[in-house]
């Protein structure tokens, strides 16, 4: 995968959520380790959109944070344009890291929390340019800010306003303008439309598509909303308890889902076409990630689980156009 823009190989991130040392000692309790992400392999080509879906606690947001460097991986290597960003072979030093990460930006879920309310929009939008090239002149920055705002469908003159003067959808446009200021090739978007109303969500999704076409951007698009991911993504990864259980082109994944968990998720989504149809309720809930089941993490909820599933953890294997981590699929039982 030399052509990949972004490449994650066996990336894991553990969090130590142990009780304090004294409690541990007195109550003779061991350390508690949360394996938020546990061995994820992903590759992303230029101009491609990779969707990551899964329920709360599956590790999808942690993957986003690992990619942009907000968390350091516990294990594994992340490469961007062939250069090692994090992992054993990563170049030391904050400056080198910053230079490598210049090509990627992140968009967050809450456009109310991610913009500083005391800054004018113009300053918010050009902040990444300032951080990168501190010497840039004021007139130059004004010009760049106006161009960026126009690019996301706002008026150049809006730069003098403050964030509270904008609606939620417009704020998310400001976040996108800020992310575009360093001319990135990769945007990591963590639930970018989840806080927005549907009509506004449609505006933002359409804008993201237009920008991708115009600028050749690649997106890592994280969402719990399967319909949104179906709309925007070229390829989709489904996560369950810190691992990818199925990775496939969007059309394949939504058309012929292979992994039992993917099937369950797709069945559970309420859809406009569902009117009048009786629903088959899904059994069970995501297990406690501190104490994941042995073998395949999905086996307690899986109708196809057998002895091997309870014992041995399946790895991601190619199955047609998709890659699936499931013994039943591998054995041809599914």
């Amino acid at each position, binding site marked *: 995968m030399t052509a990949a823009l972004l490449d994650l190989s066996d990336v894991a991130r553990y969090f130590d959520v142990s009780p304090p040392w004294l409690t541990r000692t007195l109550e003779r309790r061991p350390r508690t380790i949360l394996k938020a992400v546990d061995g994820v392999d992903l590759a992303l080509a230029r101009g491609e959109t990779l969707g990551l879906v899964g329920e709360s606690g599956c590790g999808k947001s942690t993957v986003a944070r690992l990619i942009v460097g907000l968390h350091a991986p516990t294990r594994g290597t992340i490469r961007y344009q062939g250069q090692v960003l994090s992992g054993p072979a990563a170049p030391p030093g904050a400056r080198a890291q910053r230079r490598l990460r210049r090509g990627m930006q992140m968009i967050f879920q809450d456009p109310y929390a991610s913009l500083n309310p005391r800054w004018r929009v113009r300053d918010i939008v050009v902040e990444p340019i300032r951080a990168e090239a501190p010497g840039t002149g004021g007139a130059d920055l004004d010009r760049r800010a106006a161009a960026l705002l126009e690019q996301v469908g706002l008026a150049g003159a809006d730069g003098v306003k403050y964030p509270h003067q904008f609606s939620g959808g417009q704020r998310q446009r400001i976040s996108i303008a800020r992310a575009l200021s360093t001319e990135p090739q990769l945007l990591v978007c963590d639930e970018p439309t989840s806080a927005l109303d*549907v*009509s506004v969500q449609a505006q933002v999704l*359409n804008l993201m*598509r237009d920008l991708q076409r115009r600028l050749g951007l690649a997106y890592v698009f994280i969402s719990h909303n399967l319909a949104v991911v179906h*709309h925007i993504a070229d390829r989709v990864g489904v996560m369950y308890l810190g691992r990818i259980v199925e990775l496939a082109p969007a059309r394949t994944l939504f058309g012929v889902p292979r992994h039992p968990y993917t099937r369950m*998720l797709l069945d559970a989504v309420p859809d406009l076409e569902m*009117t009048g149809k009786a*629903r088959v309720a899904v059994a069970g*809930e995501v297990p406690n990630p501190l104490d994941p089941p042995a073998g395949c993490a999905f086996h307690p909820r899986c109708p196809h689980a057998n002895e091997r599933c309870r014992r041995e953890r399946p790895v991601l294997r190619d199955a047609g156009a998709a890659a699936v981590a499931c013994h039943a699929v591998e054995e041809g039982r599914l």
Partner: protein
Amino acid sequence: MTQTTPLLDVRGLRVEFPTRRGTLTAVHDVSFAIAPGEVLGVVGESGAGKSLTGAAIIGLIDPPGRIAAGEIHLAGRRIDNLPDEAMRKLRGREIGAVFQDPLTSLNPLYTIGRQLTETIRTHLPLSESAARARAVELLDEVGIPAAGRRVDHYPHQFSGGMRQRVVIALALAAKPRLIVADEPTTALDVSIQSQIIALLQGLAREHGTAIMLVTHDMGVIAEMADRVAVMYAGRIVEIGPVADVVHRARHPYTVGLMGSIPSIVEDRERLAQIDGAMPRLTAIPSGCAFHPRCPRRLPRCAEARPELSPQGATRAACWNPAAAAPGVTAP
């Protein structure tokens, strides 16, 4: 739809908030009815007035907000002008409420058994032990495994989906005839969401409970509701049977709303886009409140406000309704 007498009858409801800069009207002239066993979905985007309409019915509008006009009747009895104490008895006994966040609806310091028995004994003349037995029965009914043991657990010992079941059990404690559910599945994951939907559906079908389901999620409405009311800027702009509103909407706002929802079965290059955003309460446009964003507007739309009138299978408030629903495929 159903020809039985409505259980809930709302007529000309108006909710106002007095502010320093004048009175804001958040809900205007809203009228609808719900029959026993019927699920009415109320949809709209933030600020449409859907949650306030629900709050008005359960008598929980935060002051200084108030019901300024209109009447609410429950099973033929007027309830919007009841004194606080009488309303408090009615709430829980006749009307159950389910809110979005199950954690804020439960007291973290009491076991769920205690919260349930307290609610049951407030409304029903039962002994402590009978109330406890009823609590276990309720937990079992909403699908909590090992209810006899779980009844002594605290809210934090339950997962999000289980907590929402407990909240539903609380709402059901006195066998109310109406449940007002405000975004009951919004905070939940899809697999849990589908379980809660199935649970509420079962209540309506098997016990004849009427449900007012307030949500922004059209998918949930499409699946659960019998009829849908679409709200915009404080008014109902379209109301009708769910299949007609979803697939054959007449009001341009409803059409746009349906077209803007991504689907998991259909490939679409672009989503239908309604430009702009819902107006603020301080600046509701003249005439039809939707006209500045409307692709089908006529000159008169800015001057006169259209009333709800029959348009095919639904009733819509529009001077120039869409002929058939474009952008959404019929089944």
